């Protein structure tokens, strides 16, 4: 019986395969195209006359003497100071992930183990906070930050990103903690552990899948953020995403498109690699809150 359910007619299989192929093309091709184009010169990638130039590298050959060039990469990393943006992104991402996991596990553990009613209201408040558009929060930060003179530096941005990330982390870890049986820490408490010891030595060791998932989402938020970093950091402290935007628009870089193209590739490649490794955790996290309904 089981096998018959999963048996499909030939037409269906063919139709299915074609559909998936088209779908994959739509979702992957833009990235492959950008990767390909990043090794060309501007006249090829943004061509007015003939788009096949982008394939053959017609102008790239004329300008550099080969059909592919890494000129844009070298220039953006050195002259465009993309190395600095990369370093800033690394600092921000690592700090945000560490701090938000530390705060989030503590808070979510308490929420999952307390039987009082206020946990419910806290979770509802977190849900409301989660829905706030980041830009409206940023508009609230700027003025106080200017007055306190803490605008433009990395630590401020890190704390802000941690805080913005907390509601989601709390909800995610809360649903993970709920799946860990209460008896586990109760027995530890009877044996004379304090709550913190039970949390640290009994619960955390079995919580790694949840922590990895929450960490992954914190990482994506910090790594990908544009709204907060673009408005709260000054030019020298820009992380990758606002830096790419700066290559496109500002007078300083004169709309240097090929720098932006190569930087997009430099910024996206590590992210894709990390997601490739942690794909399962990402999907389990996205569905944690949804499927129960």
């Amino acid at each position, binding site marked *: 019986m089981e096998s018959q359910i999963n048996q499909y007619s030939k037409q269906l299989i063919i139709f299915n395969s074609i559909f998936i192929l088209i779908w*994959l093309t739509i979702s992957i091709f833009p990235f492959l195209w950008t990767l390909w184009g990043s090794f060309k010169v501007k006249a090829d990638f943004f061509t007015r006359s003939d788009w096949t130039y982008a394939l053959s590298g017609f102008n790239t050959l004329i300008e550099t003497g080969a059909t592919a060039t890494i000129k844009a990469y070298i220039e953006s990393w050195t002259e465009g100071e993309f190395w600095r943006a990369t370093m800033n992104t690394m600092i921000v991402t690592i700090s945000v992930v560490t701090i938000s996991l530390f705060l989030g596990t503590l808070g979510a553990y308490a929420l999952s183990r307390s039987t009082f009613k206020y946990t419910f209201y806290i979770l509802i408040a977190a849900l409301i906070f989660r829905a706030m558009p980041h830009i*409206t929060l940023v508009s609230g930060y700027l003025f106080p930050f200017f007055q306190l003179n803490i605008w433009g530096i990395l630590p401020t941005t890190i704390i802000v990103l941690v805080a913005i990330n907390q509601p989601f982390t709390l909800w995610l870890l809360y649903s993970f903690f709920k799946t860990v049986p209460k008896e586990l820490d109760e027995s530890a408490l009877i044996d004379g552990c304090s709550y913190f010891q039970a949390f640290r030595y009994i619960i955390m060791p079995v919580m790694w899948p949840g922590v990895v998932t929450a960490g992954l989402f914190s990482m994506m938020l910090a790594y990908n953020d*544009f709204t907060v970093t673009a408005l709260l950091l000054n030019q020298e402290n820009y992380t990758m995403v606002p830096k790419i935007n700066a290559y496109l628009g500002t007078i300083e870089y004169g709309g240097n498109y090929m720098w932006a193209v190569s930087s997009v590739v430099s910024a996206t490649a590590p992210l894709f690699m990390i997601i490739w490794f942690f794909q399962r955790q990402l999907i389990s996290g996205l569905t944690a809150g949804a499927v129960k309904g």
Partner: protein
Amino acid sequence: MPHKTFFWFFFPTGLAMILFIGLPIVSSFFQSLHIENQQILMEVENCDPFGCTTNVRVDVEATEKLKEENPLGRFNGFGTYLDRNHLAFDEIGEAWSASSSIGEFKDIVLNLPFYKALLFTLTFCFAVTPPVIFFGFIVALSINTLTKRLKGLIVFGTILPMIVTPLIGSLVLFWMIDSQGIIGASIKILLGDPNLSLKSSSTLTWITLIIYGIWHNTPFAFIVFYAALQTVPQDPIEAALIDGASRFQRVRYIVIPHLYPVATFIMLICLMDNFRVFEPIIGFSAEGVAQSLSWMIYQDLRNENKMLFGSAGATSMLTIIGIAILLTPVLLRTWKEFRTER
């Protein structure tokens, strides 16, 4: 867990949320009640051999001093909310009495910055969500039939558009769709119209942005549907199979009803997330024809020397009200869920 232990466990994250999410909303509201200081003018008498003239000039020193004493500006009450760039009640009233037909009135109102942005934001939200649910469902159904081996690779390929930040995602698409990119140039040749360009018409730009929105959001719907498909009970499907139901009938009458709650969940999350749309507008350089509420706030704040805190605050508050309206069903649902759990 005793109150005291709970407090210490929850204190750090609670403090972070209150300081950096709760307070900014209050601060935003406070800002929205103020408006930038006026420049202090002074009369200067210039005398030359032909006589004296009086000029009005900005008193830089006094203006600076006022700014230092009162950095937030002067109190304006709800004035900013009502001005031309926000709710613009006066302008609407005028338009109502001045215009002869509803169409004319609509044109005037939708040219006011706030309503223009609101129209785009809502259009984007409601145009993106249904296709996202549709495509997400179809892709999930298709991938679900594959063998396990292939699944991992294909799921990875499918979720790529969601992983990249909207700015990068929209840039990547923009570079292809732009009149100098591969797709844009091909369309130009196909249609034989050398002047055809994304920026030439606002309808085209809106459609492109919506297509981008579908491209970016479908993976999320796909993943949620895909996970939900694993929970569909097999017994009714078997029974239907014995009764001679086709695959389409099985999907239509057993799978889809089972996935209804999931679909509403996706719809609400999608509406909420797309209500804050603004990075694609920058990525597609579509500021000219498509403005969203979030973009308006960004625009007020991005000029370092002349930030319009009051205006940004007012738009923020109005955006939050919009979010609150969209959020109510989600809140009610969560509320009910919790009640039944306890």
